[in-house]
């Protein structure tokens, strides 16, 4: 492990990261939260058709605990936006989204009526997770572009040829925890991990080791690691005390996240205390390098 970490530290990622904020063929929401049937925490999921044609999407909710999928389809007219609360779902014409009562991730992919790249790259999305305690986490879905013409099959290769690759490294700027005890979850930043590779047809739960490299403002370097089955949410402090100000030594850190067995998608939830209420914000990573992954979706 130590050798691998040293090797990783010494080499720069060379493949291409997936560029973001462009019309995409596959989007992944790494964090969908429903607690108390939406009364405690709920998620508004938003999707938009960025093309001038009707499109059909296949979507799969994947609960974090089981990694089994709930499929549904969404039809969007040209330029149509749509949003729904995950706890309630929505029903509109040919679109029927079931209510979701778990926490997990959501994947949506374009099922084009033509094989051209433009017919694939048509959607974007974002989500807002909000709780009764006032916390709000807004973030954009991670988008993957189709790169070559062809039909959609039940294997979605994120290989840099058919679709853009998964990011190899994800770089975050995070705010260090003040390190006070006991831990107040509402004031602790959190890391969300979702797998890039997933076999939803055979329901094979992906697992991987996640490596962390942390730099403080004095360029001092730390590292940590953890294991993840399917997807996970962890407070940064639970990953190691290096994320606290007394150990890190500075207010801000540069966190680099990388999956070992498979690339992962990550999101940090920034939390810090302001006088009246905890402040929360989604913290999306900068991406570096690329690695291949495969998503297998159920075939009907």
């Amino acid at each position: 492990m130590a050798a691998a970490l040293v090797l990783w530290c010494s080499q720069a990622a060379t493949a291409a990261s997936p560029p973001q904020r462009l019309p995409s063929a596959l989007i992944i929401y790494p964090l969908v939260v429903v607690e108390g049937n939406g009364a405690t925490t709920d998620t508004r999921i938003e999707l938009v058709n960025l093309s001038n044609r009707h499109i059909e999407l296949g979507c799969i909710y994947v609960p974090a605990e089981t990694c089994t999928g709930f499929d549904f389809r969404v039809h969007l007219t040209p330029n149509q936006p749509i949003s729904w609360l995950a706890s309630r779902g929505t029903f509109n014409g040919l679109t029927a989204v079931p209510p979701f009562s778990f926490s997990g991730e959501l994947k949506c992919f374009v099922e084009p009526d033509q094989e051209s790249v433009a017919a694939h790259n048509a959607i974007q999305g974002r989500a807002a997770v909000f709780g009764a305690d006032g916390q709000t986490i807004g973030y954009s879905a991670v988008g993957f572009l189709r790169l070559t013409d062809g039909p959609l099959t039940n294997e979605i290769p994120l290989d840099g040829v058919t679709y853009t690759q998964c990011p190899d490294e994800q770089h975050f700027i995070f705010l260090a925890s003040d390190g006070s005890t006991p831990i107040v979850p509402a004031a602790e930043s959190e890391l969300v991990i979702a797998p890039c590779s997933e076999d939803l047809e055979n329901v094979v739960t992906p697992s991987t080791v996640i490596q962390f490299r942390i730099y403080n403002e004095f360029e001092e370097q730390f590292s940590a690691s953890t294991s993840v089955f399917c997807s996970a949410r962890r407070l940064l402090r639970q990953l190691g005390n290096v994320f606290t100000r007394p150990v890190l030594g500075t207010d801000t850190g540069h966190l680099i996240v990388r999956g070992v067995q498979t690339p992962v998608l990550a999101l940090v939830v920034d939390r810090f205390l302001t006088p009246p209420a905890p402040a929360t914000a989604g913290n999306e990573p900068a991406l570096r390098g690329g690695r291949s992954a495969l998503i297998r979706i159920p075939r009907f």
Partner: protein
Amino acid sequence: MRPARTMQNAIISVALAAALGVGGAGPAFGQTGLIDWSNVARALGNALRSWRFSPYPKPTPTTAVAETPTRAGTSTRTAPPARTETSTRVPTRTRTPSHTRQPTRTATETRTATHTRPPTRTATPRPTSTPLPPVTNDGQIAFGVAEGIPPEQKLASAFIVLPYIVTTPPFNTRIELMNMSNEQITLQCFYVRQSDCIEVGFFVSLTENQPLSWSAYDGTSNVLTGTAVPPLDTFDGFAELKCAVDASRPELRAHNVLQGRALVYDAESGETVGYGAVGFQRLSPGSYTGVVDLDGFTYESCPERLHFLALTRQSGVPSSTLITVPCAQDLLTQTPTETVVQMQIVNEFEQVFSSSYRFRCMSKQAFSSFITLSKSAVGTDTVHLIIRGVSTPLISLIVDRFAGQNGTLHTTANEPFLEGGRSATVIFP
């Protein structure tokens, strides 16, 4: 006209009677010689034509011969404009230029190939008087095809823009930058104030992989690295921050090393808006001159259109806010950029609305300023908002505000999706 038509009918009647008298009509008769149908048809055609066009020079008989009655009928039918319409509709597929981009993206070498491009950029006039891209959609910007390539986001960049920085108490902003390379870098940064576009410049040095954050209200200083960020305690309203990598070497990897974000928070209400910087990658090697040409050759272009998924304004909830800053900026001559912003709003039923407004320097508009962004007018919870600057491309951000459980107010940043590209130039003093 009436006698002519009567005569016409009479001739047709005579011709039909003659045909019936022969015992039936069919193509075979015309060939067997019992009756020469082609002659009958030709005579009929000539008669009709002569009546219809009698005052005018007659059509040449040859054309009349060429068109046998049945042929004439089919020819007018075979060329239905509908066909040509569908074929002209296909061009919507030619909007696939967006995928021709893919190869260029995967093969970054093709981009670098453009280094040969003459460095005439310094001589070109700055502010983007770039011609407006053709809008082929009857004026509806929502349904056009934006040309050019938008900047790829969330990657290590050479130039970043943080469009929303507030330091008016009780608001403050924490600015976060990080060096994504393994070498020391220097940044040239400018705060630009909303009220008059006055800028405040400073330099930041980052060691390899170094993160740095500071409170915009307080600034920061580090005598070891030479970083000194002035406090924005006297800035009213809001500001933006632009930072460019002052690369020590001309190689691209010495330029594309920076990312950043900002956290705007209200110390009284706890309202927090965290967003990532808009990043532009350097595309061709060269030294940093203080002139940032966002032209798709030296640096990535500015986005031509920005697409937002926005929540419509609901009664009893504070209004969401649309922030826009110009992509082009001349901080050398202190010339504020002014532009009209076009907005196209598509609701969930695909109904289209539009609005526009003019701003100078930069702008913060409440959704309550636009009836077309209220749920009562639009009819749906969510809209697809597309914005575009007329005389200069824009960078924009929405601060979403909505009511959650038990009417709790929630606030979050809403960053746009990008489409197309348009040139702009930022000139630093």
